[in-house]
């Protein structure tokens, strides 16, 4: 494992009732944002829980910040800032009292940092947490997670159910954190717009990591194309992830777009007229098989 590799997952598997998580390999380098995308129940929370030792997987080796999670989960949690999907607090306490409970567990805890985040997130530290809105609770969880200056921040659906203003604030804060190149963030979400800040995207579906790539390359390779059939072609279906022919015109989606792929398509007797990038939402839908062009055509009809 290189010094800059802060996450290394090998052969992770875990079963929860009928759900089975299986991730053969997942790595991440320091200074980047990894966005985990997937529908509800895809395995995002289980994966993140396993990274901080809150889920004990049946098999596999997980190393976080150079520490084996199986035997050093407490040390991992000490060095990682973790914001769970449902941040739980003692509702009768206020933010200051909660911070007083947490501070002794983190060697890098800074009250100054806490104050800075409480002010920035406009959190009234004297009010009991039971009076907080959902957005306030998420902001408090984030402020507490950031107050011990973690090298790695892991956020499980932090923006779910938040209003756009708070979401922007949370996402902006995360984006700012990795600018120095020393911090890293893993963020799971099913809201694809939140993952615009992610350098890498991992797509989970039914417990499988079906895609893990650089976001720029992902957008480069995943394209929606349309055009016309020039001559009677050999079956071009194999060149596309999803393909539909309608008389002399066709439409298709590929995850292999390149100049080489273009020439293969042209050799197959197709002329590309329009080539468009896919949104993350569309990539998720096509990658998980939730959408294909035949269905689109039926919907239009």
């Amino acid at each position, binding site marked *: 494992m290189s010094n800059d590799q802060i996450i290394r997952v090998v052969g992770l598997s875990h079963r929860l009732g009928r759900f089975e998580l299986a991730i053969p390999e997942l790595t991440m380098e320091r200074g980047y944002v990894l966005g985990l995308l997937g529908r509800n129940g895809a395995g995002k929370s289980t994966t993140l*829980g396993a990274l901080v*030792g809150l*889920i004990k997987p049946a098999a596999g080796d997980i190393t976080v910040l150079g520490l084996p999670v199986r035997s050093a989960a*407490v040390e*991992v*949690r000490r060095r990682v800032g973790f914001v769970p999907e*449902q941040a739980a607090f003692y509702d009768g306490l206020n933010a200051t009292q909660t911070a007083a409970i947490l501070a002794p*567990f983190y060697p890098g805890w800074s009250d100054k940092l806490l104050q800075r985040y409480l002010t920035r997130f406009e959190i009234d530290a004297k009010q009991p947490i039971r009076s907080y809105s959902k957005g306030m609770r998420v902001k408090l969880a984030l402020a507490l997670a950031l107050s011990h200056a973690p090298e790695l921040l892991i956020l499980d659906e932090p923006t779910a159910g938040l209003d756009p203003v708070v979401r922007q604030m949370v996402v902006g804060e995360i984006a700012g954190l990795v600018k120095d190149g020393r911090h890293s963030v893993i963020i799971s979400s099913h809201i694809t717009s939140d993952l615009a800040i992610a350098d890498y995207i991992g797509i989970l579906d039914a417990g499988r990591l079906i895609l893990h790539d650089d976001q720029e390359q992902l957008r480069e390779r995943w394209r929606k194309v349309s055009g016309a059939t020039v001559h009677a072609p050999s079956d071009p279906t194999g060149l596309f992830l999803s393909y539909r022919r309608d008389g002399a015109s066709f439409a298709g989606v590929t995850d292999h777009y390149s100049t080489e792929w273009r020439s293969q398509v042209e050799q197959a007797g197709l002329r590309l007229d329009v080539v468009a990038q896919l949104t993350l939402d569309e990539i998720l839908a096509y990658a998980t098989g939730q959408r294909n062009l035949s269905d689109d055509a039926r919907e239009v009809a």
Partner: protein
Amino acid sequence: MLVVTLITLATALVLTAIEDQDLAIGYRFIITLVPAYFGLTLPAMSFRNENRGGTWRFLRALPASGSIVVSAKAGAALLVLGAGSVVALAGLMIANGGSTIQATRTLSLPVVFGLGLLGLNFGLCFRFGERHASLALLVILATLQITGMVQFALAPGGGIRDLITAVEQWFEWAQTPMGLLTCSCVAMVALAAGWILSIRIYDARDITHPM
């Protein structure tokens, strides 16, 4: 805690006005039950609050090992049990007209009993969850009682009258220095066993298990 304090103090005040000795024994018994009451109910109450409020997730997410989390919870329970015992002691002192020595002597065995119950119950709460722990505890206590009764009944010349006499004799012995020491050792073993069992269970489980 407040309710128990009020009931204890009210019982103590009633005791000061009672002349009937048999009735007084009954009222005094209520006060001496306070430590055992806390030993029986504190772990389940504490676990129920964590599970209902979802705060067990907060504890789980802490960078803390099972020994720290369990010790903190057990420490808090012991503090409340201690406070309850002080209230009971005050109640007995009021009832006895201020005799600290007599009140301490009366309360020492119930406190030891409460400590043993607390340790046992704590381990059971971690093992079976707070809903089933009380049932498991009742089953254990009933089994012990039935085993003892059967042993007496089967013993040569045994019978229910002998059993009552034996129980009375046991209570007299338990209040002697040697008896109290023996009971304290048993309670400490129960506390230690409950503590160690709880830590092992906590460390072996993950966030998919509530407390």
